[in-house]
């Protein structure tokens, strides 16, 4: 794999590692794309703006060795991918934690009954 794919590969790894969470009992993230869109679109907008401000003000820059060079204006495509992938992983984590907590509680209630 060329070095320029490294950032994208890291994002793919995040998606791969969190994918099994979709199959925890009661978790529906990828299968509820409308809800995903409602949650993600404002986040992408707000954080792309923050990213653009950061780039414009020189807060950070990207190492051309590890990015594809595909740009949306001043924004590397990888950054847009980041703002979709990381929130998705976060929602999957939150749903999986909820799933495990439900299982623990139902087990406890089963013992109590």
């Amino acid at each position: 794999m060329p070095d320029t794919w490294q950032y994208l590969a890291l994002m793919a790894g995040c998606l791969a590692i969190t994918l099994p969470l979709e199959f925890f009992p009661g978790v529906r993230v990828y299968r509820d794309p409308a809800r995903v869109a409602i949650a993600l679109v404002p986040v992408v907008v707000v954080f792309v703006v923050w990213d653009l401000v950061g780039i414009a003000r020189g807060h950070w820059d990207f190492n051309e060795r590890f990015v594809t060079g595909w740009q949306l204006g001043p924004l590397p495509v990888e950054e847009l991918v980041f703002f979709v992938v990381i929130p998705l992983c976060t929602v999957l984590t939150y749903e999986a934690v909820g799933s495990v907590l439900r299982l623990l509680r139902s087990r406890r209630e089963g013992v109590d009954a």
Partner: protein
Amino acid sequence: MPEYTLLAVLSLPIVAALDLVVLRTRLLLTARYWLSMAIVLFFTVLVDGWLTKLDAPIVVYSAEATSGLRWPWDIPVEDFGFGISMCTLVLILWVRATPAGPVGRGGDGRPRPASGHREAGPATAG
């Protein structure tokens, strides 16, 4: 205060106010949120650690715009403000959005409480 430091610090009370006052999702009062964020932060260190490592950085930070505090590894501490705000915001919007699909339909479309985000926490409304 350096600009990125200032923005990262400011973003946290803004998101907290959104949760507790504006949208009243009250995620911050639930154990489920804090457990999730603990897991997210662990993986943040791995992913951001890779993005920011000084011997082969993917993202390069300005010394002027940051505090210079980098921990753990070479992660600028400001990134945790940025990351926590982003992840908290998406969860606030996620729990506000209603799950799709008729409840009780086939497959695993079992009933799901619309306010499921409160079930695991100590939060008691009102």
